């Protein structure tokens, strides 16, 4: 879906990207994580064809973003970190024009406005919107035409906690309902952990690590979490708790949640698969709640 290969971007003497290489597969919700000035916004803008790379290769949906930007952006929605809109234009007029550029009608614009939760402010001028609603307007614009790929640059920046929660929930829902691939740049790890299942960690213009959250947790020796459903959750829990590397087991209704060291991943996967085949477990999944730990370790390893 997205492939960066040795991408270099310079702004005068400063190098924003220094040979960035990563891929984002189709269908994931990927977090582009890194501290301020890591090159996240530059990466998003190069992927959208708004900035030209100085070196390397970029492919997004099989297209070169700079050379085939118009074709690419028919299939991509972009939310900028601090989007600036013409201030005196009513929200409705702005949405209608952007929809027309995308070859869409007012109904599509209205649907996007509803999805992003900005439909109550259609008659208001853009300058009358709060930061939170400006962000929602940006989200509505990004959602126009139900794009295959959403590039969201710091979507929760400058929002109050409740607005952050709402925007994150909206993104999560969109990922699930639209089935779109989503790339979210952020430096707020706990938020990314809630919505992402894939991560690209970038610092100083270099990609330090990438992969699914569970693969990253395994690679960096961080904790992983097994969630299993069972008709006999206590029996399954007692089986799990006796395994080496298991750090804690909780039972919540028919769910058993086991936290374990990543070194125990293979052995627990085998155990749960056996339990599933024997009917003790109805199903299980592996997840990671240790993105912060992975991030710290990746940054430390690069020093």
């Amino acid at each position, binding site marked *: 879906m997205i492939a960066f290969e040795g991408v270099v971007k310079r702004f005068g003497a400063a190098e924003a990207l220094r040979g960035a290489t990563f891929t984002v597969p189709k269908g994931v919700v990927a977090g582009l994580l890194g501290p301020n000035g890591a090159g996240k916004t530059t990466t998003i803008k190069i992927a959208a064809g708004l*900035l*030209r790379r100085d070196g390397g290769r970029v492919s997004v949906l099989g297209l070169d973003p700079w050379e085939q930007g118009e074709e690419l952006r028919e299939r991509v929605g972009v939310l*900028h970190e601090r989007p*600036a809109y013409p201030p005196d234009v009513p929200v409705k007029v702005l949405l209608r024009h952007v929809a027309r*550029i995308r070859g869409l009608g007012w109904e599509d614009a209205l649907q996007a406005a509803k999805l992003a939760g900005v439909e109550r402010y259609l008659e208001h001028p853009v300058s009358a919107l709060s930061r939170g609603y400006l962000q929602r307007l940006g989200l509505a614009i990004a959602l126009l035409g139900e794009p295959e790929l959403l590039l969201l640059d710091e979507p929760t920046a400058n929002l109050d906690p409740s607005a952050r929660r709402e925007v994150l929930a909206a993104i999560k829902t969109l990922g699930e309902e639209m089935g779109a691939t989503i790339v979210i740049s952020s430096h707020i790890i706990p938020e990314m952990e809630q919505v992402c299942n894939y991560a690209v960690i970038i610092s100083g213009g270099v990609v330090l690590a990438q992969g699914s959250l569970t693969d990253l947790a395994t690679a960096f020796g961080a904790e992983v979490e097994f969630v299993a459903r069972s008709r006999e959750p206590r029996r399954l829990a007692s089986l799990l708790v006796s395994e080496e590397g298991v750090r804690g087991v909780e039972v919540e209704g028919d769910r058993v949640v086991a936290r374990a060291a990543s070194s125990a991943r293979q052995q627990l996967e085998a155990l749960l698969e056996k339990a599933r085949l024997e009917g003790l477990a109805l199903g299980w999944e592996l997840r990671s709640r240790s993105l912060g730990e992975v991030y710290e370790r990746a940054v430390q390893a690069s020093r």
Partner: protein
Amino acid sequence: MRGRSKLRAKASRFAAYGAFVAETVGGPLATSTAALSALTFLLVLAFPPAGGPVSGLPVLLYLTSVGYSVVALAGASAMVSDLKGPAQVFLSQPISRTAYALAWLSALLTSALATFSAFLLSFAVIDPILLRAVDPILAAAWLLDAAILALALLAAAVLARRASVLVALWAAMTFGSAFLLALPSEHLRRAVAVARPLYSALSGWGAAGGPPLAESALLAAALALLLYWLARARLEV
């Protein structure tokens, strides 16, 4: 067939963005153009034919041209402001960088045509016979002059992204040109005559052959190509 529908889609996007420029940023341009037209009308009345309207015509054409140059400067400055913010939102849509620049150029050229049409209309309203005084060469020089100025300002807007650079370029082209035409250097005067055909026509430079319109048209074409190249290769947001 597919190529034609692609072309139609491109044209439709350009029209949609052009309409947005016209509806929002184009508002002040339209107001300035209207104000300039009203001023032209008053000036036509202020230069009554004392021995014919021709005596006041060069002054009128010059003042209208200066007035339009202010409109073009305002338009190019608006593009600089747009490039610092809202352009990001529009260029994130399926619109090409060249279509974006072309929409702004269209706004400025439409404004030039409207200003000149209003100028002619002022003559027609007072007395249609006065229209005969407007030499086609002078009309062509005025329009080419306006196009060259608009193209130069927009190219500078894309390249420098600073309003101060635009003001400096505008001052050099508007006032510096008139000064340079009075200098003895033939090469310099020719260069200015090509860049500002109206000035050369009004000052009587190259009176035998008239203003170098063909060369000015070539310059306008070269500037259009430069703007196209800048938009394609350098328009990052």
